[in-house]
């Protein structure tokens, strides 16, 4: 299946869910459109726009190979960091996260720790002390 067809199918599925959700919202009173009016018609528009993508047979172009593993690891590591958001020890957690991230991206431990510490210090100074945002 071509990449475009997958994109079209994903958008069409989203559109269908949107229309179903919009139908469940209260209808308008009299001639006035209700809460579901706008989302419903956006869904219709998306379905119409997705149709050519699904139906069209586009020649498969040879694309440069994508390395999925590294972005997936970065996204996963960030996810773990965000799950721990607000659990205390902000500075320590952040240094560890950044150091791991930089190691993953091929930096040496030493350079990674140095950069991590600097960035964390900058964020704590700017946000916690400058803007009085409570980071914990």
């Amino acid at each position, binding site marked *: 299946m071509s990449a475009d067809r997958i994109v079209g199918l994903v958008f069409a599925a989203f559109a269908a869910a949107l229309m179903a959700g919009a139908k469940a919202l209260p209808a308008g009173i009299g001639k006035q459109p209700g809460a579901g009016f706008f989302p419903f018609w956006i869904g219709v528009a998306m379905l119409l726009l997705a149709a050519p993508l699904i139906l069209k047979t586009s020649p498969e172009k040879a694309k440069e190979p994508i390395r999925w593993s590294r972005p997936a690891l970065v996204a996963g590591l960030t996810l773990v960091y965000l799950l721990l958001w607000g659990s205390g020890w902000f500075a320590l957690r952040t240094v560890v996260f950044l150091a791991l991230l930089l190691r993953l991206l091929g*930096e040496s431990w030493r350079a990674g720790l140095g950069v991590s510490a600097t960035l964390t210090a900058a964020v704590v100074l700017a946000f916690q002390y400058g803007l009085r945002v409570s980071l914990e």
Partner: protein
Amino acid sequence: MTPDLLVALRAVFELQTLGFLAVGVVLGAIFGALPGLTATMGVAVLTPLTFWVSAEQGLAMLLGIYAGAIPAGGIPAILINVPGTPASIATSWDGYALSQRGQAGLALGLNAWMSLAGQLVSIVFLAVAAFPIATFALSFGPAEYFGLALFGISLMAGVSGKHVLKGLLAGCLGLALATVGLDPMTAYPRFNFGIADFLDGISFVPVMIGLFGLSEVLTQISEGAGRTQTAQADAKLGRTTPTGEEARRIAPAAFTGAAIGTLVGAIPAAGGDVGSVIAWEQTRRLARDKEIYGKGSLEGLSSAVAAANAAIGGAMTTMLTLGIPGDAVSAILIGALLIHGIQPGPLLFQNNRPFVFTLVLLMVLAAVLVFLLGLLGARPLARVLRVPNPWLWAGIVLFGTVGAYALNNAVVDVWAMYVAGVIGFLLRRATVPLGPLVLGLILGPMMEANLRRALILSRGDWTVPLTRPIVLFFLLATVVSLASPFFRRKSA
């Protein structure tokens, strides 16, 4: 020279006032340049500090932040493809392309020059036509706002590049996401899945940080970008000033941008973000070399930057003449002025003319200061390109995350940033353009709420709004905008 102007000159050219202005400009530049910190936030956070100084000094600092943040927002947009503020989204389209071609210097230089041009042109508009512009802004009822939003949305195709169909789908996705939260008319909760945090909808700035910050990082990693941005590191920064020939070419684009930016900025609830996209697309449509837009067009960059900056003067016009905020920043400025017992509005022009002159002079000075800062800073700033990529990526992820949180002190915003980042990455991989998505997010609420307001006013009659001239103008412009690609193809 009128005595009022003399009073104003004396107030402005006082060492302390100038000092506050300079501090404001520098702080504003920092707020603007860091993704996750916006001009609105800078002005909001520093407003309380101005309670303890004179009105002129406080205003000097706040105006400095405003004038400094918008141009600085273009810097990360140009250098690392991450807009610093929503107003610099369109700046990244041509700016980053230029920077990748080894012309970062010229892009940064143009950013400084066009910021100056945009701010000055809008101040001239303010000085000569404040009241007509304000009346124009006030004539915007629900139907007119709907027309403006519809026209803005019709630009989706234009900002999609080669992938028009996918761009329109992304635009619809933006419109759909904008419907999350309380229904603007009936306050009925929509698509929030019982989560109170989503009752006010998904906050825009965290989504922007995710779409342009995190997803850019993931994209660069997936493309196997090297440790350094070799192309740029090897290339010289290049000149920072345009040649005379280039300047002549840019001038019309810059003026179009500034004029559009001023008008859009003057309309309450529409600011530099909308203005710069409209300006960029208008300039592109009038241009002969349309293909180069988005790939490093000097005119495209100039128009976008001039419009983003001209929106400042536009917003200030509405604020000063009517006492109505033209955008989020001027809403906070009104609050700050009230604390000093100054009420913006028509009476200000009658009762306190020296203060109006002071304000205009401060805006001019701020524009010049930020211009100088921008030119002087271009070379040192471009060194960012020599920072190893992983360091930059780590910095973007960290500042994006903390910035998203700091916006409303809400964890849900951090998640919005993350999810937008991952989805943005997947969409980029599938060559779905993100510009229309952002346009949909910004304009969706404006379009829906005002369409429904217009229908309440017309008692459900869809034809009544059509009889209003400004609405008709926007509808015609929308039709032209949607039809023009087809005409062009035939003639070509």
